């Protein structure tokens, strides 16, 4: 079945360093969404990308959707302690509309 994988599983950075997480789908996606889950919390929607090669920015966060619409990335510039959490990508299930979530990348930021 459809699989959405993320790498790395875990990243520990010093505050001020950059961070990138990569998302790869086994199938072409009509769109990709990114969510952030703080420790002990629930996933919170960040953004949706729809077009091939699309790039969107939210302050220090940059999101990209691959040309083949099978991969995506999230880049955080100059991390802050408030960026701590697990970042998930999610895409519509094959032939369905509910989302398949990736395995997530847990980010730890050292002050």
């Amino acid at each position, binding site marked *: 079945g459809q699989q959405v994988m993320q790498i790395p599983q875990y990243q520990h950075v010093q505050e001020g360093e950059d961070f990138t997480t990569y998302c790869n789908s086994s199938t072409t996606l009509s769109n990709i969404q990114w969510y952030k889950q703080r420790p002990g919390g629930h996933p919170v929607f960040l953004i949706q990308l729809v077009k091939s090669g699309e790039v969107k920015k939210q302050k220090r966060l940059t999101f990209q959707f691959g040309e083949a619409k099978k991969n995506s990335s999230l880049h955080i510039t100059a991390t802050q302690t408030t960026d701590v959490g697990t970042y998930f990508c999610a895409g519509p299930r094959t032939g369905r*509309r509910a989302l398949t979530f990736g395995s997530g990348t847990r980010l730890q930021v050292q002050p």
Partner: protein
Amino acid sequence: DAGVTQSPTHLIKTRGQHVTLRCSPISGHKSVSWYQQVLGQGPQFIFQYYEKEERGRGNFPDRFSARQFPNYSSELNVNALLLGDSALYLCASSLVMEGGRDGYTFGSGTRLTVV
């Protein structure tokens, strides 16, 4: 406006028992999805309802069932609980089934522990 509300927040059940989890979506949202999240993993899709009809089911046994009511609230039922059912159960509401540009809004979840 209230967000997505789930009840109860925490629950401890014994193996073999039955549990009912409840979710009220954001006002105006007609799509409700249920996800199971085991510690350290991403949310796993269980069910999706839209306009009171089941629109999708994940790879979960028949012990799991759900329904959506006329007011768009939803219940998730799990029968014959197993230890492996211990997890955070998340409800997500959205305007459109795939989330759209506003994505899914998740509730705070129900933490189920089976002992």
